[in-house]
Protein backbone atom coordinates (compact mmCIF):
# COMPACT_ATOMS: atom_id res chain seq x y z
CA UNK A 1 0.00 0.00 0.00
CA UNK A 2 1.35 3.39 -0.95
CA UNK A 3 2.36 6.17 1.38
CA UNK A 4 -0.25 8.36 -0.33
CA UNK A 5 -3.00 5.96 0.74
CA UNK A 6 -1.68 6.09 4.30
CA UNK A 7 -1.70 9.88 4.32
CA UNK A 8 -5.16 9.99 2.77
CA UNK A 9 -6.43 7.52 5.35
CA UNK A 10 -4.85 9.66 8.04
CA UNK A 11 -6.55 12.81 6.85
CA UNK A 12 -10.02 11.47 6.22
CA UNK A 13 -9.93 8.96 9.08
CA UNK A 14 -11.46 5.49 9.05
CA UNK A 15 -13.71 5.19 12.05
CA UNK A 16 -14.30 1.46 11.64
CA UNK A 17 -10.68 0.63 10.93
CA UNK A 18 -9.43 2.80 13.78
CA UNK A 19 -11.40 0.72 16.26
CA UNK A 20 -9.58 -2.54 15.52
CA UNK A 21 -6.61 -1.48 17.64
CA UNK A 22 -7.41 -1.14 21.36
CA UNK A 23 -7.23 2.44 22.56
CA UNK A 24 -5.67 1.95 25.95
CA UNK A 25 -2.05 1.22 26.69
CA UNK A 26 1.10 2.70 28.13
CA UNK A 27 2.56 3.20 24.67
CA UNK A 28 -0.23 5.63 23.83
CA UNK A 29 0.31 7.69 26.96
CA UNK A 30 4.07 7.63 26.40
CA UNK A 31 3.67 8.94 22.87
CA UNK A 32 1.41 11.74 24.03
CA UNK A 33 3.74 12.72 26.89
CA UNK A 34 6.96 12.49 24.88
CA UNK A 35 5.52 14.49 21.99
CA UNK A 36 4.28 17.16 24.35
CA UNK A 37 7.57 17.45 26.26
CA UNK A 38 9.66 17.43 23.10
CA UNK A 39 7.47 20.08 21.46
CA UNK A 40 7.80 22.25 24.57
CA UNK A 41 11.60 21.95 24.37
CA UNK A 42 11.53 22.48 20.61
CA UNK A 43 9.81 25.83 21.06
CA UNK A 44 12.67 27.00 23.27
CA UNK A 45 15.31 25.65 20.89
CA UNK A 46 13.52 27.49 18.09
CA UNK A 47 13.27 30.70 20.11
CA UNK A 48 16.96 30.44 21.01
CA UNK A 49 17.96 29.84 17.44
CA UNK A 50 15.89 32.70 16.05
CA UNK A 51 17.04 35.09 18.78
CA UNK A 52 20.68 34.17 18.17
CA UNK A 53 20.13 34.73 14.47
CA UNK A 54 18.61 38.15 15.08
CA UNK A 55 21.48 39.06 17.38
CA UNK A 56 24.09 38.00 14.84
CA UNK A 57 22.34 39.97 12.11
CA UNK A 58 21.97 43.02 14.32
CA UNK A 59 25.62 43.03 15.36
CA UNK A 60 26.72 42.49 11.79
CA UNK A 61 24.48 45.22 10.38
CA UNK A 62 25.10 47.76 13.10
CA UNK A 63 28.83 47.44 13.12
CA UNK A 64 29.64 46.52 9.57
CA UNK A 65 28.67 49.92 8.20
CA UNK A 66 30.69 52.04 10.61
CA UNK A 67 34.27 52.29 11.85
CA UNK A 68 36.34 54.65 13.92
CA UNK A 69 39.69 56.39 13.65
CA UNK A 70 41.46 57.15 16.89
CA UNK A 71 43.85 60.06 16.43
CA UNK A 72 46.56 60.70 19.02
CA UNK A 73 48.64 63.82 18.50
CA UNK A 74 50.13 66.69 20.51
CA UNK A 75 47.45 69.25 21.33
CA UNK A 76 49.00 71.80 18.98
CA UNK A 77 48.87 69.44 16.02
CA UNK A 78 45.51 67.88 16.76
CA UNK A 79 43.42 70.16 14.56
CA UNK A 80 45.81 69.88 11.61
CA UNK A 81 46.04 66.11 11.90
CA UNK A 82 42.24 65.87 12.18
CA UNK A 83 41.88 67.92 9.02
CA UNK A 84 44.43 65.68 7.26
CA UNK A 85 42.60 62.53 8.26
CA UNK A 86 39.23 63.91 7.15
CA UNK A 87 40.79 64.91 3.81
CA UNK A 88 42.19 61.42 3.34
CA UNK A 89 38.80 59.97 4.16
CA UNK A 90 37.05 62.27 1.70
CA UNK A 91 39.28 60.90 -1.02
CA UNK A 92 38.85 57.28 -0.03
CA UNK A 93 36.40 55.29 -2.17
CA UNK A 94 33.83 53.44 -0.08
CA UNK A 95 33.63 56.10 2.62
CA UNK A 96 30.19 57.67 2.62
CA UNK A 97 30.84 60.28 5.31
CA UNK A 98 33.27 61.05 8.09
CA UNK A 99 33.19 63.44 10.99
CA UNK A 100 35.19 64.18 14.11
CA UNK A 101 33.28 63.70 17.34
CA UNK A 102 32.85 66.91 19.36
CA UNK A 103 34.00 67.32 22.96
CA UNK A 104 30.47 66.75 24.26
CA UNK A 105 30.11 63.48 22.39
CA UNK A 106 33.51 62.27 23.62
CA UNK A 107 32.64 63.29 27.17
CA UNK A 108 29.39 61.31 26.91
CA UNK A 109 31.35 58.26 25.79
CA UNK A 110 33.74 58.55 28.73
CA UNK A 111 31.10 59.46 31.28
CA UNK A 112 30.32 55.90 32.37
CA UNK A 113 33.95 55.52 33.48
CA UNK A 114 35.00 59.03 34.62
CA UNK A 115 31.78 60.72 35.65
CA UNK A 116 30.00 63.80 34.21
CA UNK A 117 32.52 66.51 35.14
CA UNK A 118 35.47 65.26 33.17
CA UNK A 119 37.63 68.24 32.02
CA UNK A 120 38.21 66.69 28.64
CA UNK A 121 40.09 69.69 27.32
CA UNK A 122 42.81 69.23 29.93
CA UNK A 123 43.39 65.57 29.21
CA UNK A 124 45.34 63.99 26.36
CA UNK A 125 42.23 62.22 25.08
CA UNK A 126 42.55 61.00 21.48
CA UNK A 127 40.24 62.54 18.91
CA UNK A 128 37.65 60.08 17.57
CA UNK A 129 36.58 60.24 13.94
CA UNK A 130 33.49 58.31 12.93
CA UNK A 131 33.38 56.79 9.43
CA UNK A 132 30.15 55.71 7.74
CA UNK A 133 30.80 53.34 4.88
CA UNK A 134 28.97 52.96 1.61
CA UNK A 135 27.32 49.54 1.14
CA UNK A 136 30.37 48.49 -0.92
CA UNK A 137 32.75 49.36 1.95
CA UNK A 138 36.32 50.60 1.71
CA UNK A 139 39.73 48.97 1.50
CA UNK A 140 40.79 48.94 5.15
CA UNK A 141 44.40 47.91 4.46
CA UNK A 142 44.83 50.65 1.83
CA UNK A 143 43.37 53.25 4.19
CA UNK A 144 45.69 52.16 7.00
CA UNK A 145 48.71 52.59 4.71
CA UNK A 146 47.63 56.10 3.67
CA UNK A 147 46.94 57.09 7.29
CA UNK A 148 50.35 55.76 8.35
CA UNK A 149 51.95 57.95 5.71
CA UNK A 150 49.94 61.16 6.23
CA UNK A 151 48.78 61.05 9.86
CA UNK A 152 50.99 58.63 11.81
CA UNK A 153 48.97 59.10 15.02
CA UNK A 154 45.76 57.84 13.45
CA UNK A 155 44.67 54.27 14.14
CA UNK A 156 41.84 52.79 12.13
CA UNK A 157 39.48 50.50 14.06
CA UNK A 158 36.99 48.89 11.69
CA UNK A 159 35.51 46.85 14.60
CA UNK A 160 36.49 43.60 12.93
CA UNK A 161 38.68 42.57 15.84
CA UNK A 162 35.81 42.35 18.35
CA UNK A 163 32.87 42.16 16.00
CA UNK A 164 33.84 38.89 14.38
CA UNK A 165 34.00 36.77 17.61
CA UNK A 166 30.60 38.14 18.66
CA UNK A 167 29.00 37.41 15.35
CA UNK A 168 30.71 34.00 15.26
CA UNK A 169 29.39 33.22 18.74
CA UNK A 170 25.88 34.26 17.79
CA UNK A 171 26.06 32.22 14.60
CA UNK A 172 27.30 29.22 16.57
CA UNK A 173 24.45 29.67 19.02
CA UNK A 174 21.98 29.76 16.15
CA UNK A 175 23.49 26.55 14.78
CA UNK A 176 23.26 24.91 18.20
CA UNK A 177 19.60 25.89 18.35
CA UNK A 178 18.89 24.17 15.04
CA UNK A 179 21.01 21.19 16.06
CA UNK A 180 18.94 20.94 19.25
CA UNK A 181 15.79 20.87 17.12
CA UNK A 182 17.22 18.05 15.01
CA UNK A 183 18.18 16.13 18.17
CA UNK A 184 14.71 16.68 19.64
CA UNK A 185 13.14 15.36 16.45
CA UNK A 186 15.51 12.40 16.44
CA UNK A 187 14.74 11.61 20.07
CA UNK A 188 11.02 11.91 19.36
CA UNK A 189 11.36 9.51 16.45
CA UNK A 190 13.30 7.03 18.61
CA UNK A 191 10.79 7.19 21.46
CA UNK A 192 7.79 6.84 19.16
CA UNK A 193 9.47 3.92 17.38
CA UNK A 194 9.96 2.17 20.73
CA UNK A 195 6.39 2.96 21.77
CA UNK A 196 5.04 1.67 18.46
CA UNK A 197 7.09 -1.52 18.74
CA UNK A 198 5.82 -2.01 22.30
CA UNK A 199 2.24 -1.44 21.13
CA UNK A 200 2.64 -3.91 18.27
CA UNK A 201 4.18 -6.49 20.61
CA UNK A 202 1.41 -6.10 23.17
CA UNK A 203 -1.21 -6.40 20.44
CA UNK A 204 0.11 -9.60 18.95
CA UNK A 205 -3.25 -11.32 19.47
CA UNK A 206 -5.02 -8.47 17.68
CA UNK A 207 -2.61 -8.81 14.77
CA UNK A 208 -3.12 -12.59 14.69
CA UNK A 209 -6.92 -12.19 14.57
CA UNK A 210 -6.73 -9.48 11.92
CA UNK A 211 -4.52 -11.61 9.73
CA UNK A 212 -6.77 -14.61 10.23
CA UNK A 213 -9.74 -12.68 8.86
CA UNK A 214 -7.79 -11.47 5.85
CA UNK A 215 -6.31 -8.12 6.87
CA UNK A 216 -3.36 -6.98 4.83
CA UNK A 217 -0.24 -5.84 6.66
CA UNK A 218 -0.72 -2.36 5.21
CA UNK A 219 -4.18 -2.23 6.81
CA UNK A 220 -2.81 -3.28 10.20
CA UNK A 221 0.13 -0.89 9.91
CA UNK A 222 -2.19 1.98 8.95
CA UNK A 223 -4.32 1.43 12.03
CA UNK A 224 -1.22 1.83 14.23
CA UNK A 225 0.25 4.67 12.15
CA UNK A 226 -2.99 6.68 12.39
CA UNK A 227 -3.20 6.11 16.12
CA UNK A 228 0.38 7.18 16.81
CA UNK A 229 0.44 10.07 14.37
CA UNK A 230 -2.69 11.59 15.89
CA UNK A 231 -1.33 11.17 19.40
CA UNK A 232 1.97 12.76 18.45
CA UNK A 233 0.11 15.62 16.76
CA UNK A 234 -2.10 16.17 19.80
CA UNK A 235 0.76 15.94 22.31
CA UNK A 236 2.99 18.20 20.25
CA UNK A 237 0.21 20.76 19.74
CA UNK A 238 -0.31 21.02 23.50
CA UNK A 239 3.45 21.11 24.17
CA UNK A 240 4.04 23.75 21.49
CA UNK A 241 1.18 25.85 22.81
CA UNK A 242 2.51 25.72 26.37
CA UNK A 243 6.05 26.44 25.15
CA UNK A 244 4.86 29.42 23.13
CA UNK A 245 2.95 30.79 26.12
CA UNK A 246 6.07 30.35 28.28
CA UNK A 247 8.18 32.20 25.70
CA UNK A 248 5.56 34.96 25.49
CA UNK A 249 5.74 35.36 29.27
CA UNK A 250 9.51 35.99 29.20
CA UNK A 251 10.50 39.61 29.98
CA UNK A 252 10.21 41.80 26.90
CA UNK A 253 13.35 42.76 25.00
CA UNK A 254 15.37 45.60 26.55
CA UNK A 255 16.23 48.61 24.44
CA UNK A 256 19.92 47.79 24.68
CA UNK A 257 19.19 44.50 22.99
CA UNK A 258 20.34 42.33 25.85
CA UNK A 259 20.29 38.72 24.69
CA UNK A 260 18.37 37.09 27.54
CA UNK A 261 15.53 39.58 27.32
CA UNK A 262 15.27 39.20 23.57
CA UNK A 263 14.64 35.45 23.54
CA UNK A 264 11.05 35.57 22.32
CA UNK A 265 9.72 35.49 18.79
CA UNK A 266 9.23 38.60 16.66
CA UNK A 267 6.43 39.34 14.20
CA UNK A 268 5.85 36.44 11.82
CA UNK A 269 8.31 34.43 13.93
CA UNK A 270 5.38 33.62 16.22
CA UNK A 271 4.10 31.36 13.45
CA UNK A 272 7.17 29.12 13.67
CA UNK A 273 5.87 27.07 16.65
CA UNK A 274 2.94 26.02 14.44
CA UNK A 275 5.40 23.94 12.44
CA UNK A 276 6.40 21.89 15.49
CA UNK A 277 3.21 19.74 15.80
CA UNK A 278 3.31 19.16 12.04
CA UNK A 279 6.94 18.05 12.24
CA UNK A 280 6.11 15.81 15.21
CA UNK A 281 3.23 14.24 13.26
CA UNK A 282 5.42 13.64 10.21
CA UNK A 283 8.10 12.12 12.44
CA UNK A 284 5.54 9.88 14.16
CA UNK A 285 4.03 8.87 10.81
CA UNK A 286 7.33 7.64 9.42
CA UNK A 287 8.75 6.11 12.60
CA UNK A 288 5.52 4.18 13.30
CA UNK A 289 5.20 3.10 9.68
CA UNK A 290 8.75 1.77 9.55
CA UNK A 291 8.42 0.09 12.97
CA UNK A 292 5.05 -1.45 12.06
CA UNK A 293 6.16 -2.95 8.76
CA UNK A 294 9.40 -4.21 10.32
CA UNK A 295 7.51 -5.87 13.18
CA UNK A 296 4.82 -7.33 10.93
CA UNK A 297 7.46 -8.72 8.60
CA UNK A 298 8.93 -10.58 11.57
CA UNK A 299 5.56 -12.15 12.43
CA UNK A 300 4.51 -15.02 10.15
Amino acid at each position, binding site marked *: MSVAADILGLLKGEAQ*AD*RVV*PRSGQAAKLTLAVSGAMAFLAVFALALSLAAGRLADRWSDALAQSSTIRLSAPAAEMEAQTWTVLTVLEQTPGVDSARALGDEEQRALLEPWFGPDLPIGDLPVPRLIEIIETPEGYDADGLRQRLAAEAPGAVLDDHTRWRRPLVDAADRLRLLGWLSLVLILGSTAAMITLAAQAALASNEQVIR*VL*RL*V*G*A*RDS*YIARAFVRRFTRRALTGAAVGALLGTVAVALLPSAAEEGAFLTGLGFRGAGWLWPLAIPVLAAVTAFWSTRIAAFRTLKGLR
Partner: protein
Amino acid sequence: MIDMQDAAYGYGAEPILSGLNLRLAPGSFHFLTGPSGAGKTTLLKLCYAELVPTAGRISIFGEDAATLQRDAIALTRQRIGVVHQDCEFLDHLSVRENIALPLTVAGRDAAAQEANLNELIAWVGLAARADARPPELSGGERQRAALARAIIMDPDLILADEPTGNVDWDMSLRLLQLLTELNRMGKTVLIATHDLALIRAAKAQVQARVLRLSGGRLSAAAADL
Protein backbone atom coordinates in the same frame (compact mmCIF):
# COMPACT_ATOMS: atom_id res chain seq x y z
CA MET B 1 -9.49 -25.62 -4.20
CA ILE B 2 -6.80 -27.15 -1.98
CA ASP B 3 -4.39 -29.57 -3.58
CA MET B 4 -1.53 -31.14 -1.63
CA GLN B 5 1.08 -33.12 -3.48
CA ASP B 6 3.60 -34.99 -1.35
CA ALA B 7 3.58 -32.06 1.01
CA ALA B 8 5.57 -32.20 4.23
CA TYR B 9 6.07 -29.94 7.16
CA GLY B 10 8.54 -30.01 10.03
CA TYR B 11 10.34 -27.66 12.39
CA GLY B 12 13.69 -29.47 12.31
CA ALA B 13 15.22 -32.25 10.29
CA GLU B 14 12.41 -34.66 11.21
CA PRO B 15 9.10 -33.75 9.52
CA ILE B 16 5.90 -33.72 11.58
CA LEU B 17 3.83 -34.35 8.51
CA SER B 18 5.02 -36.00 5.32
CA GLY B 19 3.71 -37.48 2.10
CA LEU B 20 0.49 -35.48 2.34
CA ASN B 21 -1.72 -35.94 -0.67
CA LEU B 22 -5.08 -34.31 -0.33
CA ARG B 23 -7.52 -32.71 -2.69
CA LEU B 24 -10.48 -30.69 -1.42
CA ALA B 25 -12.94 -30.41 -4.28
CA PRO B 26 -15.54 -27.62 -4.34
CA GLY B 27 -18.63 -28.51 -2.31
CA SER B 28 -17.05 -31.50 -0.58
CA PHE B 29 -17.24 -32.26 3.14
CA HIS B 30 -14.26 -33.72 4.99
CA PHE B 31 -13.44 -34.77 8.47
CA LEU B 32 -9.84 -34.93 9.62
CA THR B 33 -9.37 -37.16 12.60
CA GLY B 34 -6.49 -38.59 14.55
CA PRO B 35 -5.04 -38.63 18.04
CA SER B 36 -4.09 -35.46 19.85
CA GLY B 37 -0.75 -34.16 18.65
CA ALA B 38 -1.03 -35.94 15.32
CA GLY B 39 -0.74 -32.64 13.46
CA LYS B 40 -4.35 -31.87 12.58
CA THR B 41 -3.99 -28.18 13.43
CA THR B 42 -0.71 -28.02 11.50
CA LEU B 43 -2.41 -29.49 8.45
CA LEU B 44 -5.20 -26.93 8.67
CA LYS B 45 -2.62 -24.14 8.98
CA LEU B 46 -1.02 -25.42 5.79
CA CYS B 47 -4.42 -25.11 4.14
CA TYR B 48 -4.74 -21.39 4.90
CA ALA B 49 -1.07 -20.53 4.39
CA GLU B 50 -0.34 -19.87 8.03
CA LEU B 51 2.46 -22.37 7.48
CA VAL B 52 4.40 -23.14 4.32
CA PRO B 53 5.27 -26.74 3.41
CA THR B 54 8.92 -27.65 3.84
CA ALA B 55 8.66 -30.15 1.01
CA GLY B 56 6.21 -30.98 -1.74
CA ARG B 57 3.61 -28.54 -3.01
CA ILE B 58 0.35 -27.11 -1.74
CA SER B 59 -1.88 -25.28 -4.11
CA ILE B 60 -4.52 -22.96 -2.61
CA PHE B 61 -7.10 -21.78 -5.12
CA GLY B 62 -4.57 -22.58 -7.84
CA GLU B 63 -1.72 -20.61 -6.24
CA ASP B 64 1.43 -22.22 -4.92
CA ALA B 65 1.36 -21.59 -1.15
CA ALA B 66 5.16 -21.36 -1.01
CA THR B 67 5.25 -18.37 -3.33
CA LEU B 68 2.31 -16.45 -1.90
CA GLN B 69 3.26 -12.97 -0.72
CA ARG B 70 1.71 -11.35 2.34
CA ASP B 71 -0.96 -9.44 0.44
CA ALA B 72 -1.87 -12.53 -1.58
CA ILE B 73 -2.17 -14.54 1.64
CA ALA B 74 -4.52 -11.89 3.02
CA LEU B 75 -6.69 -12.07 -0.10
CA THR B 76 -6.66 -15.88 0.09
CA ARG B 77 -7.81 -15.73 3.71
CA GLN B 78 -10.78 -13.66 2.64
CA ARG B 79 -11.90 -16.75 0.68
CA ILE B 80 -11.32 -19.13 3.59
CA GLY B 81 -13.31 -19.08 6.81
CA VAL B 82 -11.36 -20.44 9.77
CA VAL B 83 -12.84 -21.53 13.09
CA HIS B 84 -10.42 -22.42 15.86
CA GLN B 85 -11.10 -24.39 19.00
CA ASP B 86 -9.78 -21.49 21.11
CA CYS B 87 -11.51 -18.90 18.96
CA GLU B 88 -9.74 -15.58 19.35
CA PHE B 89 -11.62 -12.31 19.13
CA LEU B 90 -10.87 -8.66 19.58
CA ASP B 91 -12.12 -8.34 23.12
CA HIS B 92 -12.57 -4.56 22.95
CA LEU B 93 -15.16 -4.94 20.16
CA SER B 94 -18.71 -6.25 20.46
CA VAL B 95 -19.72 -9.64 19.11
CA ARG B 96 -21.42 -7.87 16.20
CA GLU B 97 -18.25 -5.92 15.37
CA ASN B 98 -16.15 -9.06 15.65
CA ILE B 99 -18.41 -10.93 13.26
CA ALA B 100 -18.26 -7.98 10.85
CA LEU B 101 -14.46 -7.74 11.17
CA PRO B 102 -13.68 -9.53 7.86
CA LEU B 103 -15.90 -6.99 6.07
CA THR B 104 -14.14 -4.13 7.84
CA VAL B 105 -10.63 -5.27 6.97
CA ALA B 106 -11.68 -5.96 3.39
CA GLY B 107 -12.79 -2.33 3.15
CA ARG B 108 -16.46 -3.20 2.71
CA ASP B 109 -19.04 -1.03 4.33
CA ALA B 110 -20.39 -3.11 7.20
CA ALA B 111 -23.31 -0.69 7.62
CA ALA B 112 -24.40 -1.38 4.03
CA GLN B 113 -24.50 -5.08 4.86
CA GLU B 114 -26.40 -4.58 8.08
CA ALA B 115 -29.30 -6.76 6.96
CA ASN B 116 -27.03 -9.66 6.01
CA LEU B 117 -25.12 -9.26 9.25
CA ASN B 118 -28.29 -9.35 11.34
CA GLU B 119 -29.54 -12.36 9.43
CA LEU B 120 -26.28 -14.19 9.99
CA ILE B 121 -26.21 -13.32 13.69
CA ALA B 122 -29.76 -14.61 14.02
CA TRP B 123 -28.88 -17.76 12.04
CA VAL B 124 -26.14 -18.68 14.53
CA GLY B 125 -28.50 -17.83 17.40
CA LEU B 126 -26.62 -14.84 18.79
CA ALA B 127 -29.15 -12.07 18.18
CA ALA B 128 -29.57 -11.48 21.90
CA ARG B 129 -25.81 -11.44 22.48
CA ALA B 130 -24.75 -9.27 19.54
CA ASP B 131 -23.79 -6.28 21.68
CA ALA B 132 -21.96 -8.31 24.32
CA ARG B 133 -18.16 -8.45 24.48
CA PRO B 134 -16.53 -11.79 23.59
CA PRO B 135 -15.31 -12.51 27.14
CA GLU B 136 -18.96 -12.49 28.23
CA LEU B 137 -19.85 -15.37 25.89
CA SER B 138 -20.08 -19.04 26.80
CA GLY B 139 -17.96 -21.63 24.96
CA GLY B 140 -20.77 -22.53 22.59
CA GLU B 141 -21.59 -18.89 21.88
CA ARG B 142 -17.94 -18.19 21.11
CA GLN B 143 -17.86 -21.09 18.65
CA ARG B 144 -21.00 -19.83 16.90
CA ALA B 145 -19.63 -16.29 16.82
CA ALA B 146 -16.40 -17.63 15.32
CA LEU B 147 -18.40 -19.56 12.74
CA ALA B 148 -20.41 -16.46 11.85
CA ARG B 149 -17.19 -14.46 11.47
CA ALA B 150 -15.74 -17.22 9.32
CA ILE B 151 -18.62 -17.16 6.85
CA ILE B 152 -19.52 -13.45 6.73
CA MET B 153 -17.37 -13.03 3.60
CA ASP B 154 -19.17 -15.90 1.92
CA PRO B 155 -15.98 -17.98 1.68
CA ASP B 156 -15.51 -20.94 -0.63
CA LEU B 157 -13.83 -23.04 2.01
CA ILE B 158 -14.49 -23.43 5.75
CA LEU B 159 -11.81 -24.90 7.97
CA ALA B 160 -12.85 -25.79 11.51
CA ASP B 161 -10.34 -26.94 14.08
CA GLU B 162 -12.02 -28.89 16.88
CA PRO B 163 -15.08 -26.61 16.70
CA THR B 164 -16.92 -28.71 19.27
CA GLY B 165 -14.00 -29.14 21.63
CA ASN B 166 -15.32 -26.82 24.33
CA VAL B 167 -19.07 -27.33 24.05
CA ASP B 168 -21.62 -29.89 25.18
CA TRP B 169 -23.19 -32.49 22.90
CA ASP B 170 -26.30 -30.49 22.08
CA MET B 171 -24.22 -27.50 21.08
CA SER B 172 -21.92 -29.80 19.08
CA LEU B 173 -24.89 -31.01 17.10
CA ARG B 174 -26.09 -27.44 16.60
CA LEU B 175 -22.69 -26.42 15.22
CA LEU B 176 -22.57 -29.51 13.04
CA GLN B 177 -26.00 -28.66 11.69
CA LEU B 178 -24.79 -25.16 10.79
CA LEU B 179 -21.74 -26.55 9.02
CA THR B 180 -23.74 -29.14 7.08
CA GLU B 181 -26.18 -26.40 6.04
CA LEU B 182 -23.26 -24.39 4.73
CA ASN B 183 -22.06 -27.43 2.81
CA ARG B 184 -25.49 -27.75 1.24
CA MET B 185 -25.09 -24.14 0.13
CA GLY B 186 -22.02 -25.26 -1.80
CA LYS B 187 -19.26 -24.51 0.66
CA THR B 188 -16.35 -26.88 1.04
CA VAL B 189 -15.91 -27.90 4.66
CA LEU B 190 -12.97 -29.50 6.43
CA ILE B 191 -13.40 -30.24 10.14
CA ALA B 192 -10.54 -31.44 12.28
CA THR B 193 -11.88 -33.40 15.23
CA HIS B 194 -11.18 -36.41 17.38
CA ASP B 195 -14.87 -36.69 18.25
CA LEU B 196 -15.95 -39.88 16.44
CA ALA B 197 -19.54 -39.53 17.64
CA LEU B 198 -19.73 -36.19 15.87
CA ILE B 199 -18.43 -37.76 12.67
CA ARG B 200 -21.04 -40.52 12.89
CA ALA B 201 -23.75 -37.94 13.44
CA ALA B 202 -22.55 -35.98 10.44
CA LYS B 203 -22.47 -38.99 8.17
CA ALA B 204 -26.17 -39.32 8.74
CA GLN B 205 -26.65 -35.82 7.31
CA VAL B 206 -24.03 -35.35 4.58
CA GLN B 207 -21.75 -37.37 2.43
CA ALA B 208 -18.52 -36.85 4.30
CA ARG B 209 -15.10 -38.16 3.57
CA VAL B 210 -13.13 -39.05 6.70
CA LEU B 211 -9.36 -38.76 6.73
CA ARG B 212 -7.08 -40.02 9.45
CA LEU B 213 -3.81 -38.42 10.40
CA SER B 214 -1.44 -40.69 12.24
CA GLY B 215 2.33 -40.91 12.43
CA GLY B 216 2.54 -37.81 10.27
CA ARG B 217 0.76 -39.54 7.40
CA LEU B 218 -2.69 -39.01 5.98
CA SER B 219 -4.93 -41.92 5.06
CA ALA B 220 -8.59 -42.70 4.53
CA ALA B 221 -10.26 -43.71 7.79
CA ALA B 222 -11.82 -47.13 8.25
CA ALA B 223 -15.33 -47.39 6.93
CA ASP B 224 -16.79 -48.57 10.27
CA LEU B 225 -16.13 -45.36 12.16
